[in-house]
């Protein structure tokens, strides 16, 4: 049995559907990332799990028990807010101890448990500080320790790194991953940053416009996107309006649309390409220096694509005629995505997923 199960969760705010029939299950001890664009409904889902928002319909079960009518106080959930929501008038110790005093734990237990968490989160020595005397990263750790103190069954994190400088963010990500592994708690964390989701989560759920688009491991979602949104949202991509104009894709029906990742494309002279026979002609439109590689924009027919080129290879210039080899494309039709391989490369039959 899954630890957390959600079925048909729906919530609207004044006619606007913030969550639209969301269903998923989370296994015990797993770390799941809820990924999606801003306003997609991630926070709403999190708040419904925590009991802070009442779903219009749908069920939430923890260990098979329906918790819809259990108040947030009794759900045993640790919640870390985007801006931490620390108690400003309490020092670090009292912040962390808050949930324990609510549980009427003994003084000695509280001291021990808080001490343990201070140690675990690397805040030892800061117990007397007020939140205003801490750095952003330290505040985030306090919020984390405060949520963990009462030993919740589920940890929910809402954009835990959004308010932190880019540099510290990377460190904190690894720290969080490590910490959650050590505590072994089922965790759901929200982010709009796919790099963050991929790096931290065992499993990713992609939410857009209140709908769960796809759920799976990062590799799986990357390799086999199931919806046009996911195909375009995850990784980098160019939109292709007329895929039948690309060499090797003439068999696609006219006007079919597709999404092509830069990794699927080779640009250069025929000698540089792995399979020159499968490539077509294109015109270089723009070239950008990206530090470790060139980003090259080419025009093929009416389509514009971009791909990468090694810095070692001879430079291309806008206006140059060049060859473009498209290995693979995500064909988009009717809300479905299918992978099509270049037919001069492999089997001419498209593979439907």
């Amino acid at each position: 049995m899954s630890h957390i199960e959600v079925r048909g969760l729906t919530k609207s705010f004044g006619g606007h559907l913030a969550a639209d029939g969301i269903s998923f299950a989370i296994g015990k001890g797993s770390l799941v990332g809820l990924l999606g664009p801003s306003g997609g409904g991630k926070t709403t889902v999190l708040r419904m799990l925590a009991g802070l928002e009442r779903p219009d319909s749908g069920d939430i079960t923890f260990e098979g028990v329906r918790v819809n009518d259990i108040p947030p106080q009794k759900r045993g959930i640790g919640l870390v807010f985007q801006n931490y929501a620390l108690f400003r008038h309490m020092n670090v110790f009292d912040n962390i101890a808050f949930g324990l005093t609510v549980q009427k734990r003994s003084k000695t237990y509280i001291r021990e448990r808080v001490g343990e968490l201070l140690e675990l989160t690397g805040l030892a020595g800061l117990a007397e500080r007020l939140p205003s005397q801490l750095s952003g990263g330290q505040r985030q750790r306090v919020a984390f320790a405060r949520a963990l103190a009462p030993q919740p069954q589920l940890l929910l994190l809402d954009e835990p790194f959004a308010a932190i400088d880019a540099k510290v963010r990377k460190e904190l990500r690894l720290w969080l991953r490590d910490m959650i592994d050590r505590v072994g708690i089922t965790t759901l964390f929200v982010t709009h940053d796919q790099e963050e989701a991929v790096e931290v989560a065992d499993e990713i759920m992609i939410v857009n416009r209140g709908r769960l688009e796809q759920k799976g491991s990062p590799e799986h979602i990357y390799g086999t996107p199931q919806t046009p949104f996911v195909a375009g949202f995850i990784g980098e991509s160019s939109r292709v309006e007329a895929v039948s104009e690309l060499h090797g894709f003439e068999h696609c029906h006219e006007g079919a649309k597709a999404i092509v990742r830069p990794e699927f494309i080779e640009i250069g002279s025929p000698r540089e390409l792995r399979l020159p026979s499968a490539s077509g002609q294109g015109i270089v439109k723009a070239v950008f220096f990206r530090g470790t590689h060139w980003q090259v924009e080419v025009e093929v027919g009416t389509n514009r694509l971009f791909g990468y080129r090694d810095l070692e290879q001879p430079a291309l210039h806008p206006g140059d005629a060049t060859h473009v080899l498209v290995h693979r494309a995500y064909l988009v039709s009717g809300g479905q995505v299918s992978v099509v391989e270049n037919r001069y490369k492999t089997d001419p039959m498209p593979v439907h997923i």
Partner: protein
Amino acid sequence: MPTWRKSRSVLPGFGLSMGYTLVYLSLLVLIPLAALFIKASGLGWAAFWQTVTDARVVAAYKLSFGASLAAALVNGVFGFLVAWVLVRYTFPGKKLVDAIVDLPFALPTAVAGIALTTLYAQNGWIGKLLVPLGIKSAYSPLGIIIALTFIGIPFVVRTVQPVLQELDRETEEAAVSLGAYRTRTFVKVLLPQVLPALITGMAMAFARAIGEYGSVVFISGNMPFKTEIAPLLIMTKLEQFDYAGATAIAAVMLIVSFVLLLVTNVLQARTQRKLLAG
């Protein structure tokens, strides 16, 4: 005193505006106030001390401070409640209620005085109800507290209201998800954040009440030793051309008021800094 060294600015008019400000301020406020203290010091310490420790004067001070404190406490409780209700709940006529809170700022004190007196007199709408209970409201210290409460209402409401509004709902939600129910959340999480503003508002109401005259003279009855407040005693001394006595009483009140002004300013600066610090 401000010094005239301003940092370089491309804007004109510093000399003119600053000069005008200082001259006007000095002529109309500083010199007159200084005159009072000079006059008071001219009395000599013995005479001054004798005046301000006179039994009637001490009784008036006690009454003024006591009644002002009582009114500030009443306003602390009800002002907080009003601010809370205005920020947290919706109900019909809320906008109107919000607007009317400022009435004591806009209504001349004499009008408030005669209206409250009429209401609380023995045959007044409310006084009538209190007489059978053995409570004398008008012409008693209770009447003074009522008038001073009226005067102080907006101070607490208008100081607490914005702080309540700015409170982060998520801290409450954090408390809730950590298992706290409403009462604990209120006492442990909400109240401590509002307390500085509440105290500031009460201090302002208190400071205003100490000096209040117009709304009190009608309802107090003005009996020496019983219902005579300090500002009224100043007035009485003046009418008897006892300038020295009036000045001495006033000097003591002024010093108390200035200290209060300083305290409220510091309190308020702190509250604001807290609000700004994320």
